[in-house]
Structure formats: C-alpha cells, structure tokens
C-alpha cells in the first residue's frame, strides 16, 4: 500500500490544476477528495473511476481481481463505441469465493485467469484491476502481472486503484498513472508524422468522437491516440510520439497530459468539442500547436476556412429551432458547467438559463454564471433532491439537463429532462453534435406526453364555475359531469 499512498499524494499535488494551485501547502496535502458522510454519500469509488478511464480501450482484456460485485454488478454499462474490436465489452473477473479469500488463493487464481484469457482470446494486453478485498488480503498484483507478462509474453498491466483508496476522480488519475508507468512509450511507431496528435480524456460516448474526427481528417491531422475512446492498445503504447495533445475532460486526466508534456515534450491545451465556438477554438488550438512544433503554417488558413464553413452551416441549422425554443427555460444541473460554448449556443437561439449548480466551478466560472443568470439566487452549490423536485413541480424550468442521478427527480416532477452525462444515448460533440443536442431539447420539451401526464384524472379535478368550461386544458374543471364527458370526448375525437 505504500507505493499506492505515494501515488495518491502525487496525483493530489497536481501543479497543472487551477484548483490545486489556489490552495495552501497544508490543504494541498489533504488532497481534493472530501471525506464522505456515511448514510449520505453518493458516487463511485476509485476502482470505478479507473475502469471508466481504461475500459474503452477496445482490444484489451480488462480483468477485475475481486469478489463478484465489483465487476458483476457493473459490466457492460457504458456507451463508449468501438470501430472494431469488441473484447472490451467482454467481462473478466476472478470472482473470488469465500474459500479463495480464506485460503489465500487469490494470487494463484489471478495468474491462472490471465493464462486462460491469453489462451482463449490472445489480446495484445491484459489490464488487471485491484479492488478493496484483494488489496485488503494483500494480493500483490504487481508481482503477479510481472510474472505473467514474462511467462506469457504479453503486456499485463496492474491497475492499482482499489475502491477504498478514494473517489472516482482519484481512480481516473490512478488509471492515468498506470498508463504512464506501464503502457505509453513501450512501442515505437514507424510512421510518426508532423500532424500527429493525441486526444486525451475523450471517451467516444455514443460514438460522438466520430462527429469530430472527419474534421481533423479533412485538415490532414492524424489522431495518433484518442485515450481512451475507441483506442487500440498499440495506439496508447505509441502515444508518446504525437506532436501535440488536446485534453478534453480536464478533471479526469490532467496528470496524464502534464506528464506527457514533461516526459516527451508533447504540449497540450484544455479544450472541448461541445458547442460551436469551442469546437472551432479546439481546431484552431490544435493547428497552432502543430505549427509551433514544426508543421507547415499553411494549415492555419485551411483550419480557418473549414471553421467558417462549418460554423455557418451549424448556425443555420440551429436558427431553425429559434422559433420553437425561444424563451424556454433551461435548468443546468451538472455539478459544474464544463462547456460555456453550449450555454452560449443555447442563449444564442433565445433560451434562458434559469439555474445552474456551481459545485465544481471555479471562481472565474461563477463570475460568468452571474452575468448569464437573471437572478443570482439561482446559482446553487448542490440542491437537495426534495428542493429540486419542488422547483420543477412548480414548473420553474421547461427542461432540466443533467446526469442520470437526478433523472427521476425531473421525471417524477413531470418535467422534460435530457441526459447530458455519460449514459446518454446521443452524440453531442462537434458542430453536428450541438445541432443534435438542440434537436433533442426540442423533442423533449415538445413531446405530447407532457400535457397528458400533467392533467389530473377527470374525477380528481376540482369542480368550478361555468366560466371554466372552455379552458379544460389548464386543469380546472367544468360544469356538470355530462358536459365534461361530452367535451372531453369531442376534444379527443374531433380536435386532434
């Protein structure tokens, strides 16, 4: 565990992290994960975080050394897409039994499991994940991996991020450390070129990176490695020969980007493919970094031409939604707005942002939010489920954009909801992705079910005066039973 503790200290002290730089020495040492409250905690563990970062590498066998729950309850649960190999979706676990734990057979079972995988699937690499129980019983997965790698002649990579080490975010970073220690730089590519880049922290959810890659192809830029989305092991192993890198999801893999810059002189910038202006900015930054590293400067002009052309198309497509979405109120509940350019695009077509959480936002972010929101009070750290439910029940927003965790708060409050986190079904990256996001918002808000579910049952409606007969829609009721029934029937058969 000592080497693990050292690793954890190391990733907590991240010099490239804005939040970390703002802290004093003591606070920095305590790390960035907050202590959890038993009985009031949410979120995954370090193993979860490590698996999220690495599993999209498609041709690797991911072997979880654990009793059943860690893998058995969680496998095949993410929407990353592969353009080829499917091995990453096959689940492997040592499924330790009581006997294995009591008799200390864990290491032997792990070694045999690696052999079985090698013999049956012949993958280029096996990633072995340690977990709480195997860390607790002291299984030395590093030694087993080393021995197995020698014996079977394939890469066997220990991923030392047991759940009890900390949060999901910590696990993301420990996974990056494992790649740095054991994978990146182990293979020399024979065709490295001046237009090679890495894209770090892009998961290719719903295949959305495929909305962006053609843009890069058009510019003659080659993605040496996209880590981890749709990656092959060899891409990752030879990623150290890229000329520049873009860091997409900064909180997850910032240590990977910084250390690759230090070790292999690969400059990086933090960017996003969400939203029109951010996508353009990302393309610009990539081109500029490549030129700095020796690529021909003519790529800058070509990039500007492509941007101008694509932006014009995207804005034109978005304009079509203005009529339908103008004045609609959006509640963003994402733990922190990661892409301002999405907010920008929504506002550009006339939508209002009526509230946002600022749990993970920096001071600078908060200033921006203040300028956007009409009422500063709608900025919240974290809203309790019950309060959120009340707010949505009163129809103070026309749609909530959030992750799956709060999905049912919106739905039970009969409010349109769109998933913008990792479980989502639609690709939102790039220019077309932004149009898709707006299209999905439009579809969600204007679905005909909302009127139906919000209307109380006929027998629950408050009897009211004759005047209300015409306005059955607003839920207040009508004169007498016969008229009501006749009206509803006529409405159903005649007016639709």
């Amino acid at each position: 565990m000592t080497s693990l503790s050292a690793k954890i200290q190391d990733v907590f002290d991240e010099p490239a992290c804005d939040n970390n730089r703002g802290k004093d020495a003591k606070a920095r040492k305590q790390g960035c994960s907050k202590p959890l409250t038993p009985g009031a905690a949410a979120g995954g563990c370090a193993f979860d975080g490590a698996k999220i970062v690495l599993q999209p590498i498609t041709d690797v066998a991911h072997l979880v050394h654990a009793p059943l729950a860690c893998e058995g309850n969680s496998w095949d649960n993410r929407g990353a897409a592969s353009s080829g190999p499917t091995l990453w979706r096959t689940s492997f676990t040592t499924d330790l039994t009581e006997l294995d734990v009591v008799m200390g057979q864990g290491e032997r079972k792990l070694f045999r499991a690696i052999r079985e995988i090698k013999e049956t699937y012949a993958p280029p690499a096996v990633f072995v994940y340690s977990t709480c129980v195997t860390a607790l019983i002291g299984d030395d997965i590093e030694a087993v991996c080393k021995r197995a790698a020698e014996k079977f002649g394939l890469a066997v990579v220990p991923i030392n991020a047991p759940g009890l080490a900390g949060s999901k975010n910590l696990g993301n970073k420990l996974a990056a450390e494992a790649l740095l220690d054991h994978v990146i730089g182990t293979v020399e590519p024979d065709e490295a070129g001046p237009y090679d880049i890495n894209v770090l922290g892009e998961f290719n959810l719903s295949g959305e990176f495929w909305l962006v890659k053609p843009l890069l192809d058009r510019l003659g830029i080659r993605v040496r490695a996209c880590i981890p989305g749709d990656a092959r092991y060899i891409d990752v192993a030879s990623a150290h020969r890229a000329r520049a890198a873009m860091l997409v999801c900064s909180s997850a893999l910032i240590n990977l980007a910084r250390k690759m810059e230090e070790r292999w002189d690969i400059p990086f910038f933090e960017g996003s493919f969400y939203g029109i202006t951010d996508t353009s900015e990302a393309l610009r930054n990539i081109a500029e970094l490549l030129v700095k590293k020796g690529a021909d400067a003519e790529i800058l002009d070509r990039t500007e031409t492509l941007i101008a052309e694509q932006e014009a198309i995207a804005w034109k497509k978005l304009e079509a939604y203005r009529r339908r979405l103008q004045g609609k109120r959006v509640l963003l509940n994402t733990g922190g707005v990661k892409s301002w350019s999405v907010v920008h695009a929504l506002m550009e077509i006339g939508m209002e942002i009526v509230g946002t959480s600022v749990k993970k936002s920096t001071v600078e972010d908060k200033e921006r939010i203040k300028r956007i929101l009409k009422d500063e009070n709608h900025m919240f750290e974290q809203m309790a489920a019950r309060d959120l439910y009340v707010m949505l029940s009163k129809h103070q927003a026309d749609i909530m954009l959030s992750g799956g965790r709060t999905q049912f708060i919106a739905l039970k409050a009969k409010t349109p909801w769109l998933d913008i986190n990792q479980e989502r079904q639609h690709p939102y990256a790039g220019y077309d992705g932004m149009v898709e996001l707006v299209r999905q918002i439009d579809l969600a808000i204007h679905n005909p079910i909302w009127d139906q579910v919000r209307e109380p049952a006929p027998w629950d409606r408050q009897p009211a005066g004759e005047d209300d007969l015409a306005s059955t829609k607003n839920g207040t009721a009508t004169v007498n039973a016969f008229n009501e029934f006749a009206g509803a029937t006529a409405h159903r058969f005649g007016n639709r």
Partner: protein
Amino acid sequence: MVRILRKIKSAAVNPLKSSQPLGAAFAFLGVEGAMPLFHGGQGCTSFALVLFVRHFKEAIPLQTTAMDEVATILGGADHLEEAILNLKTRTKPKLIGVSTTALVETRGEDCASDIANVKLKHAEELAGTEVVLANTPDFGGAIEEGWAKAVAAMIEGITRSGARTRQPKKIAILPGCNLTVADVEHLRDMVESFGLKPVILPDVSGSLDGTVPDRWVTTTYGGTSVEEIRELGTAAQCIVIGEHMRHPAKTLHGLTGVPYAVFQSLTGLRAVDRFVSLLSAVSGAAVPARVRRHRAQLQDALLDGHFHFGGKKIAIAAEPDQLYQLATFFTDMGCDIAAAVTTTDMSKILQKVPAEWVQIGDLGDLEAHAAGADLLVAHSHGRQASQRLGIPLMRVGFPIFDRLGSQHKLTILYRGTRDLIFDVANIFQANQRAPTPEALDPFRNREMPDELRSSPLTRH
C-alpha cells in the same frame, strides 16, 4: 439424474451473477418506508444502485456506510453507527435494512453486535425505525441467497414470536426474487379471490411498480408494512414460492409455529393446479369462475402453442429457482434443455432441473454450450452471446436494462404461463428462417436424428 458441474475456470467470463448484498437490498425494497444500507465502500453501493436503476427505471433508495481506507483498517462500527443515525434523521425510514459486503466481511467485523450496540445506545433516537442485518458477503451466494437472508432477517428481527391466535383467513406469502411486480399483483388477486387475506413479504408490487407519487419520497413508498411483518405470526398458513424461501419460512415457523407449504414454481398447469387446490382447501371456497376461465385459456394456449415448442433446444442461464421454473416450463412444452447454467451450487432445487447437467458458471459457459440451440434464455447481459451466436434471446430475471416493462410481465399462475407460451412462440415465429432449396436438399442435409439442431422441416 442431473449432474452438477462445478466451476473449474479461474476467470469468470461475462458474469451471470449479481451480488448477494444486491439481493438483500432488493428484498428490503419490498418493504414500505424502507432504506437499504450497504455496509461497505461507496463503490459497492453505487454499482448496485446503478444496476437497480437501469432495471427498474426508478429512483432507488440505497445508501452506504462509505468505508474508506482508514475505516477499513480501524474497523467500520463508527461508520455504521453514523450512517444509521444520518439515515434516521434525514429520511425517517420505518426500516433500515443493512447488508454487509465483502469488504467488511473480509475484515471479519461483528456487525450484529455493532448494530445491537447502536440500537442500545440510541434507543430513543431510533424509536419507530427497525434496523435489521443480513450478512451477505459478495464472495458467497448471489441474488437468491441475499434476498432470502434479508427476509429471514426481517422475520427474526421484527416478527413477534410465540404462538399467537391464528386468523383463519390470513395467509403469509413469501415469494422468491424471481417473481415480477405483475406476478405479485396477480398472486394477491388470486389469493383474495378465495376470500383469503394475503400478507406478502417482500411485496415489490407496491414499491417497485413504477408510479408517479405527488411528492418526493426518499424511502420506498409502498410494499409490506413493518406492522404486517410484526404480525406475520397470526397467519393461518404460510405459502412459500421458490426453494430459496424455505429458510425464511422455517424461521417463521420456528418463531411462531405457522405451518408452511413450499411451491418450487408457480409456472405450468400442474403446479398452478396444486396451488389453486391448496387455496380452495384452506379457504373452504370453491374455485371462482374467473380462475376456471383462466385455466381454460391456458389449456387453449397449450394447444395453440405446442406446435412451436416441440423439439426445440433451449439454453438457459438463471438463478437456481428461476432456472427450475423455466426449465420445467420448457420441458412441459416439449422442448429439450440444451444448456443449463446457474449461479451457485447451494440450492437443492438444482437436483430437480430437467436437464442432463447444470453448470455452475457464467454467460461465457452459456455461450460455449449454446451453439445449435433455438433460444437463449438469460438476463440482458446475454445480449452479446445472442448476437455472436445469432440465436434469439428471451430476457428473464435481473437485470433487464435494455427492454422496458420487464417488471410488468406475468410469468406465474394460469395467466402467466399462458403469456409465457405466447411470448416464446412469438420469438420463434419472429426468427423463423424461410425455407431454402439448400436447407431442404436431401443430399446436403444428412443430419442424424439425435443431432443438436432442430430439423429445418419443422415449419408452421
């Protein structure tokens, strides 16, 4: 007799099992005002939670003691205490159902005395909230064991013991975890139609049936009430569905003397006939006309459906009782069980599965043995095998995350059996291959009669 094949592989490939604590939490979710609590790491809880949500498409109450590195080394009693008190303050549950995990069980924590201490120390604060414990390490058992342990724990911890005055019309029903929401609803209607008063524990039909309440509730809403659990001892008879529920029924019998009858499955004409006869005998009432009508519908379904079933090879992977339920259903329809895979070897029911062998294993084993079968029967994770083998998948059990409405599918009693026949026959019809000259060519098609694949001549 069926051969039980133990696991010999070291790497489980595509797990069939969900974990034992998940099974326990599932049972606690069938109690009104319940808050299941995992004593373990936050990952243990979050994985189970996500899986429940994917299956039920509902907000699921499930909390964690959030064991970290320090607690794992020093012991988790403080975390357990803090979690229970926090839950009591924040959500005011009627029941906190604690399930242990591999993490605390590997440490060897004495959670029972930890909980006894918490209850003693905070008796006043915890008034109105029952706290029960199921010891459910992930390295043993699977959903069935967890579910049964949680039910036994609730009976032990809550049901008033001693011989009580029996209410002649009151029937305690302990359903296995393979019954859906629709099954439990239908079961209640059936029992009530004999003038009996069923108390069902756990009752997922009240809590996991997917409704829209008019306020935000952080615990379960609906399900068996704690008061009903307390008064289980006044039932005239206990009926158990599924072999894994024998243990909780024995516990109830030991505490209160309520006699029990075990039905290993309520699917299939004969099994349902026995059940209906029992209800008639206990109630002294004649079988209602509606039930007779349902029986006749099933008879007709058997007649219409059997054309599609005869000689078909079925590969099933499911928890032991569900494996038995479905394997007997299929063999009763004239199918053969080409492969039977299950999660654990602890259940006695495996001896009765109508197959040559039952492999303790995973979906990798199912895939390896299912080539040539006409139908795969497994939970949603079977989808990859189905795709690779080109064999249709019938989704059963838990988790089903890529189809809506699995909880509202009926699988028991006359109507459920009828529906199953139609579902399966429709899968066969949807996947029927059109005849081709090649497939029918007498010189190309020299299969021996006992070979695996069904004859391509079988068309309807």
